């Protein structure tokens, strides 16, 4: 069934919108596209759209309750992964903008290079440089072959 075209956006509830915007826009380099006022007319921002690509956005909704995003063992979003062309270049950039790596660069079980950071709410973000011989691309090729 070919129902869906694309994962269009991921929406996060955030505790402190300014901190999240500083992280995703000023440090990670996403572009702010648009913000919407609350539909019920109450003061404040309802959500801000950040551009990841032309057809993928990150939506930030302020007013998150609790101290932090859920830990990695609970039923919840476990992490988000952003693809990079060059992990070394991405790490150099992150160093320049003072975003610490929570897990250093390593070759993972899937044969891709990865490193990890966290957003201000503790959402885990994997940075991945996909390698030509990785397990995912081999799996995609198998799916395509099976569909022929």
């Amino acid at each position, binding site marked *: 069934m070919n129902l*869906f075209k694309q994962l269009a956006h991921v929406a996060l509830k955030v505790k402190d919108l300014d901190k999240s915007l500083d992280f995703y826009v000023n440090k990670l380099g996403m572009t702010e596209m648009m913000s919407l006022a609350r539909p019920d007319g109450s003061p404040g921002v309802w959500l801000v759209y950040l551009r990841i690509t032309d057809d993928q956005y990150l939506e930030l909704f302020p007013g998150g309750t609790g101290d932090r995003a859920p830990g990695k063992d609970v039923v919840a979003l476990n992490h988000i992964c952003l*693809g990079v062309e060059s992990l070394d270049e991405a790490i150099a950039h992150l160093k320049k903008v003072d975003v610490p790596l929570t897990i250093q660069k390593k070759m993972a079980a899937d044969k891709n290079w990865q490193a990890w950071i966290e957003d201000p709410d503790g959402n885990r973000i994997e940075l991945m440089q996909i390698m030509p011989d990785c397990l995912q691309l081999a799996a995609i090729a198998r799916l395509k072959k099976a569909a022929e």
Partner: protein
Amino acid sequence: MPIFSGLGHIALKVNDLDASMAFYDAIGFPEMLRLLNDKGDPWIVYHRISDNLYLELFPGGKDKAVPGEKDNATGLFHLCLTVADADAAEAKLSKAGIELSRPRNANRGIDGNRGMWINDPDGNRIEIMEMAPDCIQFKAESNLKAGGRPHVLSLR
């Protein structure tokens, strides 16, 4: 230069792996790969969303479900998947036995798009959206490309 080429995957910690796999398979994302742990049990199951975007399911999640929308818990609020035709999508979902999580509003949403909502087995909210060519998101993007400032809208 942009640092990121795009979203690579979304990873969910799930309570019942079989239920989650059946759900994501039913909505058109087949299993493509699984990695086993040292006991031979599934560690990560990968489902294909597109050739360069995957969903990773990690079994063994504590708790039965994610917080509800009204809890406003810091963390993932929802995911959104796009469709070419919202009516066809609704029919396909119904055929696959997937119920909408709230009654569908046939009108265009506040952003100019048509859509509906479903929940995955853990209660993760999934928005389904047919994006209109003149929706506010595409207008904001073309404005950025033309060198404009981010749009700030009040849609009341």
